[in-house]
């Protein structure tokens, strides 16, 4: 009141009027927003790995979701190598700081069995906006369901493919490689050429080989064509008869040798490059070939960072003309019986590496929080958001909905040329529909088999600490040890179940 005394009279009415107007607006807004916000005051802690892939779109959609529903979504990121353990300890010890998480669907086995994940089958069935039937059946079964129930919402669809520089290969008169031997010879032929006009010599092949990162799938991509020829249900990790690891034989040795040989045509510190780095190199125009998930295709058309717009082709993973004889452990030439799915004598096994980042909900969280978390994941997965996100390379989301494959317009709008879009989507579709597609490992503790045993052995192999035979022996010993620890019969049963046997 004392303040008003000093305010000149003529200003007072203006001030009063302004204040009244402001109040009215606020009330109106408040009334508007107060009506629609069903999750007001609800906070959801979502954990995932450090982005920008995956984390960036989640962070971007959080305020949108808040505007719609009032829920506050916190995205907590941890390095990829820590994610599995952090989630498992948080759930198992009852700390429950994490309400929901976006992680590898392979790990659903270890989270759902002990009952840490919320069963969302009913909610998904009732969720019309999600358009679940639009999600490719393969991704639906691998990435969202476990033992008949739905535990996850998938946000991403993953296949390993190779990418090549159409201009570089054309200039060298080479065709995109169909076998791994061809991959090596192409890499060798173009290695050292200047591929982006900056005067520096560039590389034939860039493959991510970093330890404790997301590199350990690449060797399986190479080995698939040598290991699996009888179709998806034959599997490529263990022998379905006795759970013997398929890692100590001529096929895996061939794959390891190829894997190591690619380093000869690659950057010197390839051993320290994670997928983000190799993608950066490829889109900066410094590599002729690379193995990666779908991100390269969409990153290549990003005008702010790509120097190879319209110069990138994608194709299904190369394969092999030889196949492993599981009895003898030796490689044999492909025949009609040993490689029924071979095309032109080449057996290819496209690898559904990783599955696709999916969101799961902590069963121990508050009901309201669980509901908010579900609706948030559904929101991110709905076509309105998802169709845009999968065309942006930086999001890390790759296509998984049938409409995303079928409707080419979204891709054209994003900046892909028609030819590039057809080529890119074609490669993914071919992989998806291949009868010899290779599934990723989904048995209990698969993280230990792959991220620990396989990854460490590979790192030592690449550092030339151990040779091929020692590497294979180390992996076999580690995997056998895990089998023994967890019960070989049980693991075999579960492994066969993932293959549909």
């Amino acid at each position, binding site marked *: 009141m004392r303040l008003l005394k000093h305010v000149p009279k003529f200003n007072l009415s203006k001030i009063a009027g302004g204040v009244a107007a402001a109040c009215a607006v606020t009330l109106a807004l408040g009334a508007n927003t107060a009506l629609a916000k069903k999750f007001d005051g609800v906070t959801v802690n979502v954990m995932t*790995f450090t982005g*920008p892939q995956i984390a960036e779109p989640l962070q971007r959609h959080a305020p949108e979701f808040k505007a719609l529903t009032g829920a506050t979504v*916190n995205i907590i990121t941890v390095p990829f190598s820590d994610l599995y353990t952090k989630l498992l300890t948080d759930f198992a010890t009852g700390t429950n700081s*994490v309400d929901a998480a976006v992680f590898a669907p392979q790990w659903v086995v270890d989270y759902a069995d002990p009952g840490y994940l919320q069963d969302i089958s009913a909610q998904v069935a009732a969720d019309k906006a999600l358009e679940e039937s639009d999600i490719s059946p393969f991704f639906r079964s691998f990435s969202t369901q476990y033992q008949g129930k739905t535990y996850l919402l998938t946000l991403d669809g993953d296949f390993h493919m190779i990418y090549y520089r159409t201009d570089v290969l054309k200039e060298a008169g080479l065709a995109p490689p169909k076998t791994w031997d061809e991959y090596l010879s192409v890499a060798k032929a173009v290695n050292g050429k200047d591929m982006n006009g900056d005067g520096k010599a560039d590389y034939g092949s860039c493959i991510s080989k970093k330890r404790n990162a997301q590199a350990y799938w690449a060797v399986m991509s190479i080995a698939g064509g040598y290991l699996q020829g009888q179709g998806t249900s034959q599997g490529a990790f263990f022998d379905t008869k006795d759970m013997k690891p398929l890692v100590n034989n001529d096929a895996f040795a061939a794959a390891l040798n190829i894997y190591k040989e690619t380093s000869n045509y690659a950057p010197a510190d390839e051993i320290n490059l*994670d997928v983000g780095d190799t993608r950066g190199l490829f889109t900066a125009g410094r590599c002729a070939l690379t193995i990666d998930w779908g991100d390269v295709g969409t990153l290549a058309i990003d005008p702010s960072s790509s120097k190879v717009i319209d110069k990138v082709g994608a194709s299904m993973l190369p394969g092999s003309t030889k196949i492993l004889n599981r009895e003898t452990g030796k490689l044999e030439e492909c025949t009609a019986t040993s490689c029924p799915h071979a095309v032109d004598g080449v057996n290819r096994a496209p690898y559904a590496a990783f599955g696709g980042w999916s969101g799961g909900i902590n069963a121990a969280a508050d009901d309201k929080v669980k509901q908010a978390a579900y609706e948030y994941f559904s929101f991110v997965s709905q076509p309105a958001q998802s169709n845009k996100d999968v065309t942006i390379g930086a999001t890390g989301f790759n296509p998984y909905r049938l409409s995303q494959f079928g409707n080419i317009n979204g891709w054209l709008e994003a900046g892909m040329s028609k030819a590039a879009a057809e080529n890119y989507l074609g490669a993914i579709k071919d992989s998806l529909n291949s009868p010899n597609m290779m599934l990723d490992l989904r048995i209990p503790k698969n993280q230990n088999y792959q991220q620990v045993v396989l990854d460490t052995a590979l790192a030592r192999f690449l550092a030339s600490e151990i040779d091929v035979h020692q590497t294979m022996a180390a992996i076999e010993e580690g995997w056998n040890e895990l089998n023994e620890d967890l019960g070989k019969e049980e693991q075999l049963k579960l492994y066969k179940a993932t293959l549909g046997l």
Partner: protein
Amino acid sequence: MSVPKSSFWQRLTEPKDVQSMSPLKKIFTYSVLLCWSFVVLFPLYWLFITSFKLPIQVSDGPFYLPFIDFKPSLHAWEYIFIDLGRDTLRPYLNSIIIASISTVLAVFIGSMSAYALTRIEYKPKLGSIIAFIAAVALVVYLTVTVGMSWQLSLSIGAALFVIFVLSFSRYFRRSLGNNDILFWIISQRIMPPVVSVLPIYIMFQQLGLLDTHFALIVTYMAVNLPIAVWLMRDFFAKIPVDLEESAMLDGASRMRVFLTIYLPLAKPGLAATTMLILILSWNEYLLALFLSTADAQTMPLMVAAQNATRGPQWWYMSVLIVVMIIPVLIAAGFIGKLINKGQLTGAVKG
């Protein structure tokens, strides 16, 4: 008498007078020191300018001078503070709260004990100590193997210990002295955090205190207490006993002597100790990694979490690191006024 003309070499190598340095030595000294200053400051300069760079300016090769080589941009700062606003502020505040509270507690409790170890003679009985260790071992065994609830086993252990001390302690003559206590306290520092982190994690999990500020504050305080005791003891040892004796003759209690005489006199020591412990708590990574997930996440975790797949996002990282140095610099400047040149020596007299 003529003074022999000095040669060029002589002029270079001989000092003007006994106290100062020869020109050659001066050149050498200054160049080495300036060289080292460059070594120290350049990484920080690089971090600072990287926080203003665009991704393309980082990947296209080194640019050294803002405004001359490249155009600085605030995009990284915006992203960290505005886009990620709450996700940045939370760890920042957590760090400030946890570090300052645990430091104050550690320094205060540590100073009390340091004073006690300097002026009071203790004779803890070896028997009691062994009994204590045995009691803790029993508690651990009961809780973990037998599966008893920790409350029950803790009570049993405590009861047994008290009974033992009351009845049997007089049979054990052998006792330890102040130096043994001191050595034991200091040797706690040798324990690698990686050994203690799992049990501490389990303890807080049983108490349901994981991912809380309380857990981190208590742990940091416990971990840094040895340093506080170690450093403050040397400072207190230098304060003459007569001051205390005359005060006690006047009727002051020990506590008053401690609070009114020792603490004020040891201000530089307090400052140095506080600074060191503050830095250790502020930058601590391993314990925070295990004990916190979301609510109590601290800044070092946030910096480490920038280890992204797309190669680290150098620009965001630089912002975070620079932002982490600033509060420490402020605290240092604030406390630094109290640090005297000579007082720091007393800190580490063996």
